């Protein structure tokens, strides 16, 4: 923390344009990113510090079905260009209300073709906005509020700067939830933050996570809280073929920290844990197709990430290991990587965990029954579900057994505010679902 790292090949980067953010892999110098109709060539990012702002410069424009598709290069920005659009335009005269405005669609004197032409000709978006303002018959008679709404609408369309930021849990939680909340099981920022709190995950201890698919966000958030150069470990169980790891990889954590996250298939590791060498003997003795693969293929139905994404998110050193594995697997006696990971996980399972976090698409009850005995007494249990009815049943079951105390089922309201002079109010729309958390502490 402190010094600003430079953007490197292989990094995941966050591209920010106005308030829009996107996670992107900077895989090669030829890589491009797509923002709506704009394609950005990323090569000029190389070795620039994170946090830098770049100007999108039109390189070519192809007619597409729905308007022009534009290719852009990116150019590191000067300080001057960073000043806000409002400063440049210096708008001041506002009408007191909107009484004289009739909304007949003729308020803007510029035709859309004109605007599009301007768009091609001008290299500074602020100029375009200035022209639009000049040509709007109603702009100066509108109230400041409408002016702002108007500017915002225009800015959004024409603003052409992007900032490149280093991925963090905070930025990724926002991006994932906004782009497709289902891919992170609907875990909203407030809920994610509370999972971290209630699970007590920190730089000391051994933690157990079961999740059926959050694009890597949940293991990444826990490993982030475990920290670099600490002793803590995370066993990350998943039902799928390959663990979803995008968020984990995007964090670019030190190798020693990455290795303290042990990702294992739920079925496979439980068999390892219950049956140990027996299981292995059997699997050695029978077909070379391992049970883990069988389990993985079936369970992967649960897995939302597409195959393409999955191949994308395999980290370089994993690839290398895979290669090693396939070499090894010719040499039939050496254990495969997943077997080694299962053994590491089983050792931690035998020593028991300092907390259990579950985010299951399945009914949590049976999974909890299998994992709860692996948790030490006086330790937190945190179960997330989007379906409160399932948590209610699980709550009642736990209450009956008496193995977990201080049981609570909670959800949240997250209300964001617009705070502007004379225009302060809660945002007009709010997210409806935080998901639900069932929390408690194990007893001896």
């Amino acid at each position, binding site marked *: 923390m402190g010094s600003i790292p430079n953007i490197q090949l292989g990094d995941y980067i966050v591209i920010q344009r106005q308030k829009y953010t996107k996670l992107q892999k900077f895989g090669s110098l030829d890589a491009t990113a797509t923002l709506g109709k704009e394609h950005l060539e990323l090569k000029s990012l190389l070795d620039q510090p994170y946090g830098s702002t770049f100007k999108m410069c039109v390189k070519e424009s192809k007619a597409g079905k729905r308007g022009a598709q534009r290719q852009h290069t990116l150019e590191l920005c000067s300080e001057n260009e960073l000043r806000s659009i409002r400063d440049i335009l210096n708008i001041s005269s506002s009408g007191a209300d909107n009484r004289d405005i009739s909304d007949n669609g003729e308020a803007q004197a510029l035709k859309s073709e004109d605007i599009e032409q301007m768009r091609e000709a001008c290299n500074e978006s602020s100029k375009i906005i200035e022209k639009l303002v000049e040509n709007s018959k109603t702009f100066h008679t509108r109230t400041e509020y409408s002016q702002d709404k108007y500017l915002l609408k225009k800015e959004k369309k024409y603003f052409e700067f992007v900032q490149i930021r280093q991925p963090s849990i905070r930025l990724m939680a926002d991006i994932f939830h906004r782009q497709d909340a289902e891919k992170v099981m609907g875990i909203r920022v407030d809920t994610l933050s509370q999972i971290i709190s209630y699970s007590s995950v920190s730089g000391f201890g051994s933690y157990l996570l079961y999740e059926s698919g959050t694009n890597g966000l949940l293991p990444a958030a826990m490993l982030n809280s475990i920290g670099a150069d600490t002793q803590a470990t995370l066993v990350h169980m998943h039902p799928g073929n390959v663990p979803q790891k995008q968020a984990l990889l995007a964090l670019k954590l030190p190798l020693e920290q990455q290795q303290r996250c042990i990702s294992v298939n739920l079925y496979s590791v439980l068999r390892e844990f219950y049956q140990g060498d027996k299981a292995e003997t059997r699997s050695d003795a029978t077909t070379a197709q391992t049970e883990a693969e069988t389990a993985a293929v079936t369970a992967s139905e649960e897995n939302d990430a597409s195959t393409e994404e999955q191949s994308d998110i395999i980290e370089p050193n994993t690839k290398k290991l895979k290669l090693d594995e396939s070499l090894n697997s010719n040499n039939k006696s050496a254990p495969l990587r997943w077997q080694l990971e299962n053994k590491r996980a089983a050792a931690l399972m035998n020593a028991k965990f300092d907390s259990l976090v579950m985010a299951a698409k*399945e009914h949590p009850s049976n999974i909890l029954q299998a994992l709860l005995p692996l948790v030490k007494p006086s330790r937190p249990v945190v179960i997330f579900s989007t379906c409160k009815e399932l948590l209610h049943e699980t709550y009642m079951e736990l209450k009956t057994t008496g193995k977990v105390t201080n049981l609570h089922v909670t959800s949240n309201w997250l209300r964001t505010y617009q705070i502007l002079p004379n225009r302060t109010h809660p945002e*007009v729309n709010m997210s409806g679902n935080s998901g639900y958390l069932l929390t408690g502490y194990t007893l001896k």
Partner: protein
Amino acid sequence: MSFLKPKTYIEQGDIVILYLSVNSMHAIEAVPTIVNKKGETISHIFQTPYGSLKVESIIGVEYGSRVELSKGWAHVLQPNPEMWTQTLPHRTQIIYTPDISMILHQLEVRPGAVVVESGTGSGSLSHYFLRALKPTGRLHTFDFHEARADQAREEFRRHGLGDFVTVYHRDVCNLGFSSELDGAADAVFLDLPAPDLAVPHAFKALKLSGGRFCSFSPCIEQSQRCIAQLTKLGFNEICSMEVLQQESVIKTRSLPVIDLEFLKAPKSAEIIANEDNKTKEPKELKKYLTSSNPQVLPGHTGFLTFATLPPNIPKS
């Protein structure tokens, strides 16, 4: 005329709600012909995603009936203020049923009440006031936008409500409510960008025996200034609130339940043999009647500020 009272059959000139689905309702006028843009009188045909409706065919039909469209069907419902707020032509931002219900309750509007409203806007709230105060009360509604006032007046007439309402084109912040209304109102409602400017006029319009006041404002600063003015003029019971309605999305969901117990025992050779074919990990689906919030909820509509003018406060 379909807003005056409950009725059984669709008559010519009625506004009728053509109900296609929860998200698709349309207010149409039950007239056999309309005049098109070229000035020609043509048969009134209403287009829907399920095909067209010859509007003449619904005249005389019982409200609540199913009517055939060229590619499907719909229901015809008698409009009321709730359906009207969902289908009316928006001339301004409008207020919706949850806020409106609280406004009517807090303003204690009932048949016989005299209510002053500004601005009229799209007439969404006005329709509610009129339902609540007719047939013995009166609504005085003001808008500073002349075209809007005219449109509203015409609309109330066509809806059969003209006898209970007076529509004024007037800038009440500067000019106040007309002096004929001094001491005439049981309740005053303001939806204005600067409600504080109209509070002294509301004070004058309320009856000497006292009355209720409401201001609806999107921003907290408007409420703050409004309350400062109300306090100064001796209003009491001042309180501000938000009402946020949440819909429950109810559905039957099939959710996976997995079994892990089998992993405790070694597989028998038999099972292993089967597995090589296509056995899956044990998993079943169980049905649950579930409810959840929609992805996006209304997070804010406006602040409702209510106050009471106590009886016998000297007005000058």
